[in-house]
């Protein structure tokens, strides 16, 4: 028989671990509830973001159930089946049980895959024809934006024409479409202006290394890749100022690489555009 000493040691360890795991469940629930008011997703400001948040909350609910279930069972088992001198059961096969916890996760994962695939294809569908089109360019360590002129066309870009002060976008002077492009520094003097409830397609470039165009309020993140133009479209739903961050490590001052967005009504936007162009 086990000595009293090991029995009490086992009992203490089992109790501690059972309580710790139960407390872990409580702590996870309480801190998550507390986090909702202080450390949660920033206030939402885009139509796509609402669907993203809904899918996230649904997934979060599912994984929370699994978290509580597994930790609850673990706490229960370490307490119930601590060594009290009993003989363990020689039980190591149960096909029905194993198939149950194969099939249930498989069904849940299939559901998640289908819903996420649907949302993903909507997010990456072709932007609506009335969408505003703007270009954003990342560089060490700031963001620049470009709007097409009244012709609605972006001019050609060629790195050979780059001049930090006079031609920061390296626009090709030989291209007539480039003559009227509106170029802004949206990290310092300017802002990226968007229209509320009007879809916008942001085409993203990089001048030097990888960056990532991240606007937390819009739930938008898309890498800026040198040599490629990436794009993402979304619909801002609230007027106001927002912040662009860089989410891909881009060098020494990566952490200060941010930009400004302002969402306005169509009238305000038109007035701003007319004033800036003149």
């Amino acid at each position, binding site marked *: 028989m086990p000595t009293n000493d090991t029995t009490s040691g086992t009992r203490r360890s089992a109790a501690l671990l059972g309580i710790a795991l139960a407390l872990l469940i409580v702590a996870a629930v309480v801190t998550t509830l507390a986090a909702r008011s202080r*450390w949660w997703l920033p206030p939402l400001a885009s139509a796509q973001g609402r669907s993203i948040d809904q899918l996230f909350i649904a997934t979060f609910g599912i994984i929370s159930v699994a978290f509580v279930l*597994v930790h609850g069972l673990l706490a229960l088992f370490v307490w119930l089946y*601590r060594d009290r001198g009993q003989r363990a059961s020689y039980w190591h*096969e149960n096909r029905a049980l194993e198939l149950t*916890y194969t099939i249930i996760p498989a069904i849940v994962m299939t559901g998640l895959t289908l819903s996420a695939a649907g949302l993903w294809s909507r997010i990456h569908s072709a932007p609506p024809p009335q969408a505003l089109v703007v270009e954003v360019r990342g560089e060490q360590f700031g963001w620049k934006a470009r709007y097409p002129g009244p012709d609605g066309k972006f001019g050609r870009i060629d790195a050979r024409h780059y001049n930090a002060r006079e031609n920061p976008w390296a626009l090709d002077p030989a291209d007539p479409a480039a003559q009227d492009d509106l170029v802004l520094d949206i990290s310092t003097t300017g802002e990226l202006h968007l229209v509320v409830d009007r879809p916008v397609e942001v085409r993203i470039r990089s001048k*030097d290394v990888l960056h990532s165009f991240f606007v937390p309020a819009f739930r938008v993140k898309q890498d800026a890749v040198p040599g490629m133009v990436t794009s993402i479209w979304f619909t801002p739903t609230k007027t106001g100022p927002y*912040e662009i961050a860089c989410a891909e490590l881009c060098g*020494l001052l990566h952490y200060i690489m941010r930009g400004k967005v302002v969402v306005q009504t169509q009238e305000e936007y038109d007035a701003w555009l007319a004033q800036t162009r003149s």
Partner: protein
Amino acid sequence: MAHVAPAEAHAGHELSFWRKYIFSQDHKVIGIQYAFTSMFMAVLGGLLAMFIRLQLGWPGRSWPILGNLFPGGMPDGQVSQAFYLAAVTMHGTIMIFFVLTTLLTGGFGNFLIPLMIGARDMAFPFLNMLSYWLYPPAIIVLLASFFVSGGAAGGGWTAYPPLSAVPQAAPGSGLGQTLWLISLALLIVAFLFGSLNYITTVLQLRARGLSMLRLPLTIWGLFVTAILSLLAFPVLLAAAIMLLFDRLGGTSFFVPAGLLVGSVPVDHAGGNPLLWQHLFWFLGHPEVYVLILPPMGMISDILANNARKPIFGYRFMVGSIVAIAFLSFLVWGHHMYTSGMHPLLGTAFMTTTLVIAVPSAIKTFNWLATLWRARIRFTSAMLFALGFLSLFVTGGLTGIVLAQPPVDIYFQDTFFVVAHFHFVMASAAIFASFAGTYYWFPKMFGRMMNERLGKWHFWLTFVGIYATFFPMHYAGFMGMMRRIYSPQIYAHLQGLQPLNVFVSIAAFVLFAAQFIFLYNFFRSLFRGPQAERNPWRATTLEWEAPSPPPHLNWGETLPTVQRWAYDYSPPDMAEDFQPQAAPAAVPTGRSREGRGDGGHAR
């Protein structure tokens, strides 16, 4: 099947000190060399994390005393921007490649494979020695990079070009990045030598009667991991060499035309930065499983032993290891949902990624079922094994969030990802390593570790891990980006500072608690009580050898295996375990009512 004649085993010729302990071809010595070197690197990697937490907890604050201690990294008492990025990069590189991979495959793999399969040594002992001796040069090259102009590499452990390809793009992209690539290439060759050896050994040198489906799950985990390494690491080796060519040879695999770094045109054309990401993650994702499959196996054996109960669903356990390994080659793109990769690929990679949840769930519930109606002993090894289970589940579940590309748009490159992989991969693998150390230490060194210190170590580490990494989920909810030097200037990250202070303090406690382990480890090495041959009353073959096993492990005859690895508490036996190599049981005549003292009959 012995590849070394038993006669030689008993020839009694004394090996010189150098052949015995330094340039040894004995798998046990090589395993212990790997383990000690990994422990040294773990302290270093942990220390680098402390610099990261110091900066994130108190950005802008000066610590003059630390500034005097680390004038290079903290010139005015504050972690410099370049050193911060070097710390982030090197912490990841060291912990993933130079600690966990080397410890799990090089350390545990080397020590355990021949012993657990009843072999005298690895199939290729000389290659095994070469494998270890590529590791110190790789470390020297890596650590030397801290002292070169520009400092160590600062482009993250993923080393995404063009940042890592264009020297003028960042201070760490100079010589530091070149040394990083050379160091990694050396270490990869070491891994490849090791993997070849492990695969051959498991296939060729198993004891008589040890069929594949009688192998302990530790061996299954290590064996499948070796196959993963052998298939995945050459891709990273090729990528690293290509990047070296881009940096030094003027090629353009990863650098496109038209780049202007600091307003200066870069003389490259025709490359694609996404190519590196595909190649890197084609290794990078299997690498995550290189770090988790051996732990899964080790945990299965430690759980069964301490629960005194067979592992539940052995065949499903083997099947799920193989399934996870296979799927791990098909999911690399889930690191690239926002990279500019075609969205249809995102859908495909999401599907394969979510499929992995199924074998992972099977393993988790099989471990739980192993505990059901068990007789649990709470040794330090068992506590860490149970801790592994908790950490693996917590971290695995957030993977379901990140696997979905629409949701990942928001969470990609935030602290939510940092929390996720520190739970599921880093902490879980570390917990399994601790469990394995407490469990196999008696076999490795012939002495027992102190259980009381082991329990203190467990409790501080378990609470410390949750206190450090759980709040990082909330930083991720807020959208805090990875690898930023300070979150203070961002509007959406206001109010985050108390959380970061809490995390930093928890991280310091967690780091400090590891010295309890180091003290226990080194003290037990010299002062620990002598270990019996089979102190845990375990079934597997390594416990048939003396503690510690002699050179070539076994005496005249190799063990012969009679049964599977999990005959714990078999019915109609007084003992509560039956070793794999024990001769066929003679029924004792006792019925199952004869329980109670069964486990202590010896």
